[in-house]
């Protein structure tokens, strides 16, 4: 009896110990009990932490997206007509296009300050702790650490681009137990920020791979780090940050708490050389090239046979990349954005968030571009300025370009319309019958970007065949033109970029829109940056490459500038600029700016470009023109006579150079200074 008792006691005790150990080991359920040490000694947790550091990159911090988060995608090139309290009182507090373009927004609107710094904190903790981990291999550790470093610097870049100079946190993070007075940090200067990002990106690039597999398209590579660095240096060299005269008054007002200017008052040409060298670093990697689609001798309605650009002795007979003999320029540009080319097989995509897009993603943008006939919102459109910026297919200007601004070359806009006979005879391809001849013979990018009056929307995802292949006119009374709602195009010009031939919004189903890959940084952007920087250089500079393996000798050189411009021109089926253009700083500068305006439409570039060039003061103050949307189909001649778009307003004040910082942030950090022209905390 005694024996049995002691044995059973023994069993009970042993069972208790065994079960207790397992039972109490419940960290996998309760993450609030995780210590840093535990988190970084488990591969799953490590990956989760890193994913968290990335997670703030989407939503309001995306590079390309719809206006709810990215109004910066819109400017004097593209506008949005919905979310307007003037049409619907429910939208009274929304940031409508006019509020946005008149600077009628408030401190704290479209606030991305806090999510950026949350990402920075997350990445910083990762960087500090990953070295002690024994759970993953040294190679992985190096890659992960470099990724965290990249994403942290990328958040700084997003802040810098939008808010201007920001406080850079110490590497060991911030101790939140300190007093508020001790926590207060001043803003660093633009140059300090740019140098910091540049330095961090070099550190990251050292351990990032050149390429990643299909499953990791949204993770950064060596090129992504170096390309961000190139963009940062390009911005730092630009007039707004580098001694430009037009914004000099603004520059003297943008100061830190001690009164030191945060933007460079004095021009330094070497910054352009540094920007050129950084762009060259990306080019020297040898992994990127522009995406091209092969030419087709026959095709379908959605993917028609290649329309060859007018014959050019230099480019028509040579194959890509020396010429356009074997490529389809229209399809090359369209497929880049409309979701047809997967990110992993797109050699031009340097950095992308892939399809990790928010409720304001590119597909949502497309839904707003689609005409009413496809159940789209029909509210995103292009300005006449953007429409006219596109070249003719032979590289000349469109007749009547910018005459409304008194900048014309004496030519008048083209009258007349495509007739059925013209279509039958294969004239004016790809225009359909009834389209204004103003839109004839334009460069391929025009047809891939502009939803001109009378363009054909394929809509092949429509369930009914007779709802597909619709020609859409924006005449009043046509169903897609002016109506007494928010949903009409204020200029009578739609947006075709990002629209896949399949896309439609039948029954409000977003699944009928092909998902798009976000073009956060494209090789074309870096190439243009290279040419733009070189054009500004007079002297000669020796700049070491990013990894100090060589020293670049940077000076203005037409051959080098062509490397940046020519691929983009040829891909678009356009001849390269003339020798005269290359030989003239001002002309080439204007040409590159126009090239960026065309090539990078809707990629959140122009909003910031106009500011860094200091062109915002002139370009954004111009009235926005469009077609006469009040005219009906029977008044089509009048429709095509440009008028100032009465529903769109524009202006520019220096306070719009940088986005205002929220009052709460200024109140909580006594050393933080507001951007000039915005309210401070007393």
């Amino acid at each position, binding site marked *: 009896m005694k024996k049995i008792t002691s044995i059973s006691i023994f069993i009970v005790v042993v069972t208790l110990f065994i079960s207790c150990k397992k039972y109490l080991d419940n960290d996998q359920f309760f993450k609030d009990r995780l210590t840093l040490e535990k988190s970084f000694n488990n591969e799953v947790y490590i990956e989760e932490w890193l994913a968290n550091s990335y997670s703030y990159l989407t939503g309001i911090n995306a590079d390309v997206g719809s206006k709810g988060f990215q109004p910066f995608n819109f400017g004097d090139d593209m506008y949005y007509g919905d979310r307007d309290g003037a049409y619907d009182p429910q939208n009274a507090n929304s940031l409508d296009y006019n509020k946005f373009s008149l600077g009628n927004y408030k401190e704290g609107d479209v606030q991305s*300050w*806090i999510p950026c*710094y*949350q*990402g*920075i*904190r*997350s990445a*910083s903790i990762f960087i500090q702790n990953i070295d002690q981990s024994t759970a993953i291999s040294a190679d992985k550790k190096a890659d992960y650490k470099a990724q965290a470093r990249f994403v942290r610097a990328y958040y700084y870049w997003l802040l810098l681009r939008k808010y201007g100079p*920001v*406080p850079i*946190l110490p590497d060991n993070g*911030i101790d*939140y*137990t300190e*007093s*508020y007075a001790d*926590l*207060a*940090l001043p803003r660093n200067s633009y140059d300090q920020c740019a140098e910091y990002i540049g330095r961090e990106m070099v550190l990251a690039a050292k351990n990032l791979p050149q390429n990643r597999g299909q499953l990791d398209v949204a993770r950064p590579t060596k090129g992504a780090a170096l390309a961000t660095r190139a963009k940062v240096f390009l911005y730092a060299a630009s007039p707004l940050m580098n001694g430009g005269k037009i914004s000099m008054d603004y520059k003297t007002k943008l100061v830190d708490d001690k009164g030191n200017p945060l933007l460079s008052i004095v021009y330094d040409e070497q910054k352009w050389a540094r920007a050129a060298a950084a762009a060259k670093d990306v080019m020297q990697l040898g992994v990127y090239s522009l995406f091209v689609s092969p030419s087709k001798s026959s095709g379908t309605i959605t993917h028609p046979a290649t329309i060859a650009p007018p014959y050019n002795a230099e480019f028509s007979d040579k194959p890509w990349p020396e010429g356009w003999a074997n490529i389809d320029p229209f399809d090359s540009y369209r497929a880049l954005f409309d979701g047809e080319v997967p990110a992993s097989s797109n050699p031009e995509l340097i950095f992308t968030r892939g399809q990790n897009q928010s409720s304001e993603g590119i597909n949502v943008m497309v839904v707003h571009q689609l005409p009413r006939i496809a159940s789209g919102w029909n509210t995103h459109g292009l300005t006449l300025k953007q429409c006219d910026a596109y070249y003719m297919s032979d590289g000349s200007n469109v007749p009547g370009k910018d005459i409304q601004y008194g900048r014309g070359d004496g030519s008048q806009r083209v009258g007349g319309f495509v007739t059925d006979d013209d279509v039958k005879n294969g004239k004016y391809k790809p225009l359909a019958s009834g389209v204004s001849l103003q839109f004839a013979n334009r460069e391929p990018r025009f047809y891939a970007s502009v939803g001109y009056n009378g363009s054909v929307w394929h809509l092949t995802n429509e369930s009914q065949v007779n709802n597909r292949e619709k020609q859409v006119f924006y005449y009043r009374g046509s169903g897609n033109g002016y109506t007494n709602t928010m949903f009409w195009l204020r200029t009578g010009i739609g947006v075709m970029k990002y629209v896949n031939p399949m896309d439609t919004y039948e029954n409000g189903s977003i699944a009928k829109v092909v998902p798009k890959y976000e073009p956060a940084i494209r090789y074309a952007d870096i190439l243009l940056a290279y040419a733009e920087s070189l054009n500004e250089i007079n002297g000669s500079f020796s700049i070491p490459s990013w990894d100090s393996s060589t020293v670049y000798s940077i000076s203005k050189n037409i051959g080098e500038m062509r490397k940046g411009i020519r691929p983009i021109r040829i891909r678009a089926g356009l001849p390269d600029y003339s020798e005269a253009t290359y030989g003239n700083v001002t002309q080439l500068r204007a040409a590159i700016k126009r090239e960026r305006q065309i090539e990078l439409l809707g990629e959140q570039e122009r909003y910031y470009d106009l500011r860094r060039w200091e062109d915002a003061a002139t370009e954004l103050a111009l009235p926005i023109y469009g077609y006469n949307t009040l005219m009906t189909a029977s008044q089509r001649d009048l429709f095509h006579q440009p008028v100032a778009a009465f529903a769109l307003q524009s202006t520019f004040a220096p306070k719009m150079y940088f986005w205002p910082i*929220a009052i*709460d*942030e200024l*109140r*909580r*950090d*006594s050393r*933080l200074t507001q951007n000039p022209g915005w309210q401070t*905390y*007393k």
Partner: protein
Amino acid sequence: MTWEVATKQDIGLDLSLWKDAFSLIVDVFQDERTGIYMPRNFLPGYVGLTSTPSANVGAVRSKGIDGSVKIQRNFNSVNVTLRGNLTYSKNEIMERDEQQSVYAYQMQKGYRVNQTTGLVALGLFKDYEEIRNSPTQTFGAYQPGDIKYKDVNGDGIINNDDIVAIGSTSTPNLIYGMAASASWKGLDLGLRFQGAGSSSFFIYGKTVYAFSEGEWGNILKGMVENRWISADISGDPATENPNAPYPRLSYNGNSNNYRGSTYWLRDGAYLRLKNVDIGYTLPKVMLNKIHMSSVRLYCIGTNILTWAPFDLWDPETADPRGKLILYPGQ
């Protein structure tokens, strides 16, 4: 993260004289608490936190005096005892988690714990002329007969930036009591006084804000008689009294008048005769006959008298809404 640290200093005197006929205990103290654990609600965004952590950031110093006295005397066969006690303390917030403000008077630092804050009322608007010549009040529409506030920061606008420390704290800083007892032969008499001072509280709610919170019908008598009434209604310019204890009547709330200000701030001080106790103990000789050991006949009164500047309801409850369901004067 550590424990909160309290540093206590105390000087005490314990005195007893004339064979305990007089005794006195006095303590003077200073109490300093540092590292009070509190949430950090105002961290700058660039700290990058996704939650609100707490830290040892608060510090409070309190000083005070605490004493009691007792006098006992025999006058022939009359036994008299007098007792008194008093506690007075004052504290100051030295550090706490609070948002920086350009107006030092809006910080809690430097003020007492539970300091009441509000606007400073300057009486009621006499006429539109006065409204036009006064700083703009931003709490809603207002007209003659509504409360006029002081522009503390002088910016010409009355808003939340004009809220200052007014009155005292919501809990009394001074508490005192007195008791006297006397006995002569079988008769005994006891008196007990209780008092508190240096506190203030706002009155609000449907009791004092007529016709608010959906209430209709009865209103306080003082409001009927002493409120500001437009001469157009009463026919008597004297009823447009800018110093009337109640503003003009308004229906269903008045966001200009009905907010914390000196207009509605009341002094919580009071002194009251809490207990009176008169008794007679029957002589032992009588009781022995009926085999009882002790019989005392007595009469007790509670809350006999109250002296207080606040007279609407029991000040001891310090109830701001006058709605606490207590038996009157309990």
